[in-house]
Structure formats: structure tokens, C-alpha cells
């Protein structure tokens, strides 16, 4: 799945990946791949600016820490990030339900003569 396809949903997806607990950049990328069964496979470098944007918006907070002997920037959800994730989920359910309903095949109308 390409970045353009995910446009507008990447923020919510990143928040969802961070919901279980803090992760560093590459672990976030691996979680994206695992949870989407490989369907979401963005260039890894592109998620870092997105994470910085979420941090600036106060939806995640980042701190440097040493994990596994390597200094890493670890991200975790803020309370505002959890609220935003709930909102994104609700909006996605409504959107996907509406699009699913619209894409359903409809039996052809019988033309009365």
C-alpha cells in the first residue's frame, strides 16, 4: 500500500500503533508491517517527519533513551493522542460503513413494462 493511498490516515495509524505502549521509530515501522500483514510498507524514512508532526501537535511525546544498548528516540501517546485516536476510529468506522454500503452490489431494478 503506497503512501498516497494512506494519505489522511497515517496520523491515526501511527497513533494506533503506539496505543499498546511506547515504541521507537523502527519498532513503529515493524509494527505497521506486522499489524497490516505486510500491506502497509512505507519508506521507513517517511514516518519520522510524521512522528515529529504528531509530537508538535501534542499527540505523542518523545524522549531519548537507551534501548538495547543503542540511543533511541522513543514515542508514546499523550492523553490528547488517545482522545484523537478515539475520534479517528469513530470517523473511520462511519466513513468505511458509508463507503461499504455504497460499494455493495445492488440488484438490478426490474423494468416494469
Amino acid at each position, binding site marked *: 500500500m503506497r503512501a498516497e493511498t494512506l494519505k489522511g490516515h497515517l496520523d491515526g495509524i501511527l497513533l494506533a500503533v503506539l496505543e499498546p505502549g511506547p515504541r521507537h*521509530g523502527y519498532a513503529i515501522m515493524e509494527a505497521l508491517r506486522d499489524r497490516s500483514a505486510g500491506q502497509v510498507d512505507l519508506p521507513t524514512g*517517511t514516518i519520522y517527519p*510524521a512522528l515529529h508532526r504528531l509530537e508538535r501537535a*501534542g499527540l505523542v511525546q518523545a524522549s531519548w533513551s537507551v534501548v538495547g544498548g543503542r*540511543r533511541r528516540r522513543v514515542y508514546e501517546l499523550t492523553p490528547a493522542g488517545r482522545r484523537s485516536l478515539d475520534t479517528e476510529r469513530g470517523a473511520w468506522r462511519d466513513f468505511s460503513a458509508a463507503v461499504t454500503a455504497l460499494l455493495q452490489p445492488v440488484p438490478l431494478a426490474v423494468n416494469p413494462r
Partner: protein
Amino acid sequence: MNRLGAPGAPCAQEAVEGYLAEVTARLPGPARARSDIVAELRSGLLDATDAHCCAGLPAAEAVHAAIGEFGDPAEIADGFRTEIAASLARRAAVAVLVTGPLVGVLWIVTAVASHIAPHLQWADLSLGLRVGIALVVIAAGVTACGAIFGIAATGRLTRWLPARPRLAPAAAAVAGFGAVGADALGLALLAVQLVTAAGRLSPGLAAMAAAASIGRVAFAGRAARRCLAIRSSLT
């Protein structure tokens, strides 16, 4: 595991640093703003390399796979350019907004101590001084509006604002140039007072206020020019 950075993998190390240099060369702003970004990308590249090593690739191939996975350096730099611009704009706006009242109070104390306005009555001032002070107030107002907008457009409010990356550096540049205008006007008023009423001036306070304004003109001017430069690099 054949980890990157271990003896025997100098080529891999060079490849990582070469890739990071390509990203860095495309990032705007001061080196300090870029160093944390580069450090984070480096640790991510090393993680990716480790992952490929664990999957069975030799170190040299693992690092090239990691670099390929990270993507085009230009694309990464484009993504970060907006963030660096926002960070620079925010720092400039905060600095200008915080220093404004401090310098302003210094000038007011100088004016009062110098008996330029004996009873703090507007009518006591000469016409030239009144016009000058009015212009300073207008410039300070423009500065404050630009700075507040710049801070709002780069912080938590961005959740609800439309994504317009060029706005914040523009607002911060307005704030910076506004501060330059306000302080330059203050210095000009001081120069006039030195010519017309030097005897009444409190020299110590006037020197402090002048030094503070000169410093603010220098830093606000530099910050405003940087914000304009980074704004023009955004699409």
C-alpha cells in the same frame, strides 16, 4: 549476528553516513536543528540493518537493504523541512514575544527616571515624541500579533488548523521585523533625546535600554531573515 559498526563492517558504516549526509545536505536551518534528526535516522538505520542481519543477510547487504527501505533522501528531507521551519518559527516567535515586554519596561523606566514625562502625562510630551511613541506601539502590536500567530500555528493548535506550513515562518518573520522596527524607533527616539535633552537623560538606564534594543534588533533581524529563507524553501 554481524552487527553494523563491528570490526569488518567499515564499508557499511560509510554507506550509512553517506546516506545521512545526503539527507543532511537537503535539510535547511542551523546544524543544531538537524543534529537530533540525523541521530534519530542513524539509530533507525542501524535498527533496520540489525533486522536484515537477523534475517540472514551479510552486513554489507543488510545495510544496503536498510538504506533502500528508508527511501529517497530527498523525500525524507522534504518531510522534515516543514518540521524544521515550524521549530525555527516557533523559537523566533517565543524569543521576540518574551523579550518585547522586558525591553519595553526598560525603556519606560528610563523615560520615567529621565523625567521625559514628569507626571506620566501624554500631553507633557513633545509632538515628535508622541508620534515616535505611537509608532513604537504600532510596531510592538504588529510584533505581538505576528508572534502569537506564529506560536499558535506551530504548537498544539495545529491539530485543528489547516496544514499551511508557510504561514508560521511568515508570521514569525513579521514578528521579527516588527521587533526590529520597534527597537530601531526606540533607539532613534533616544538619539533625538540625546541631541535635544541630553542633560535630563539617566545615562546608566539609557545605556542599558539602548544595549538591550541593539541586541534585540540584531537577533530579531537574523531570526526574521532565517524564517523568510526557510519559508521560501517550503512548497
